């Protein structure tokens, strides 16, 4: 897939997706293979340059790029500068050669495991390539009943429970933010003493919150509470015309 990205076709569409790689090391490995040498002989300097070029180019076209690809690019830029610095300059614990060696090791080891994973999977697998069989016909059979569950089922069951409980906690939090009719009733009852005169309804409801949805809930719950208290004979209510202010006062 990387062959599409030769040095000469920089004008062409750059449509390789990073999704096809499993992280920066995987991408480095692909780039290293492009050098067509034994991995132990691979030029780390060249590889670093290729990687940085790839990431820069990629960023021009796709704005989003996973952080670890950028971290690796930064690290390789650092490594590159270290490799180009005079040898005897002492900067920190690792020499550039050590870093180079470590990166090679990482690449070779990953390559080795990719190889064995394919070899493993190429073996004859039960139920894909080879099969168990047989039959109990003609035998004396005694049933040996046992209950079984496996560890996966157990862990999955517990995990589902964790998810379920997390969900319900979140729901409770969201709900408690809204102003309930019960709360409004309770609050208005405490205000009876101060609304002996006709008072604008809007002046009685609590301070507005920054969230619209909560404001709406405050107004509507207080309104419902007001109607309820009026109906039960605690309050009086008047409105001079449609869409006019609503006034309330405590009934004696």
């Amino acid at each position, binding site marked *: 897939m990387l062959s599409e990205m030769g040095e000469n076709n920089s004008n062409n569409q750059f449509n390789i997706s990073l999704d096809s790689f499993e992280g920066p090391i995987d991408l480095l490995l692909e780039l290293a293979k492009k050098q067509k040498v034994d991995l132990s002989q691979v030029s780390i300097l060249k590889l670093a340059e290729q990687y940085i070029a790839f990431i820069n180019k990629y960023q021009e076209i796709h704005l989003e790029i996973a952080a670890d690809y950028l971290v690796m690019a930064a690290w390789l830029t650092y490594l590159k500068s270290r490799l180009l610095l005079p040898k005897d300059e002492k900067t920190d614990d690792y020499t550039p050669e050590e870093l180079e060696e470590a990166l090679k090791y990482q690449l070779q080891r990953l390559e080795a495991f990719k190889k064995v994973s394919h070899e493993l999977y190429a073996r004859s697998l039960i139920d894909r390539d080879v099969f168990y069989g047989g039959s109990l016909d003609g*035998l*004396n059979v005694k049933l040996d009943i046992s*209950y079984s569950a496996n560890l996966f089922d157990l862990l999955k069951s517990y995990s589902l429970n964790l998810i379920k409980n997390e969900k319900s906690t979140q729901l409770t939090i969201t709900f408690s933010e809204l102003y309930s009719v019960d709360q409004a009733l309770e609050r208005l009852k405490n205000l009876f003493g101060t609304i002996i005169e006709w008072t604008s309804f809007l002046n009685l409801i609590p301070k507005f919150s920054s969230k619209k949805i909560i404001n709406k809930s405050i107004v509507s719950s207080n309104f419902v509470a007001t109607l309820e208290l009026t109906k039960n004979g605690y309050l009086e209510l008047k409105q001079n015309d449609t869409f006019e202010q609503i006034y309330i006062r405590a009934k004696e």
Partner: protein
Amino acid sequence: MSEQKDTKILEAILFASGEPVLEDDLKQKISFKNNLIQYLENIQDSYKNSGINLVKTGNKWSFRTSEDIKNDLTIFKKQKRKLSRAALETLAIIAYQQPITRSEIENIRGVQMGRGSIDHLMEIGWIKPSGRKNIPGKPVLWITTDMFLEHFGINNLADLPNKNELKASGFLEKRSAIAKITDMVSGENDAENDQKEEEIESLEDFIPETPKN
């Protein structure tokens, strides 16, 4: 393809099928179709002194264990029964939160339990009572047993992955890896004990019921 290969294919199919196979079906799988009966008779002959014999019934053929040893051999066929979802959930909670009372389990599961789950788990031998909690009513505390560890292949309870590890290993993903789990999720609203315990015969796990083309 060779005649030897045809023979091998016949042996493998008759073995893997686990039940009598029609001659016509066998014929389709081999190269030299006219040799079928000859092949089968050769196989029958070469197995005649073995513990497995090739038998013809009607126009079907099958391997079966030899008649000679019928009286010397009793097979203990393992029949595995699956634990109900409720019991499994209860077991998981006990495993992670032990020692724990029944009402604490009910709180976590968000459903009231019939007697079933705990009795059943105790009967299997995976949980046991261990003391009482020092609160009003002194309810029994439940813990898991050594048999539980053995069955699930864990050395000790601390080996169970904790919440963060479950999460990091993908268990808390909503993505359901396999239909069975989706079923579990979508069945969440089911009433507690209405799920029938599903019986699974372990021997059938690997034998397709009807070989298909």
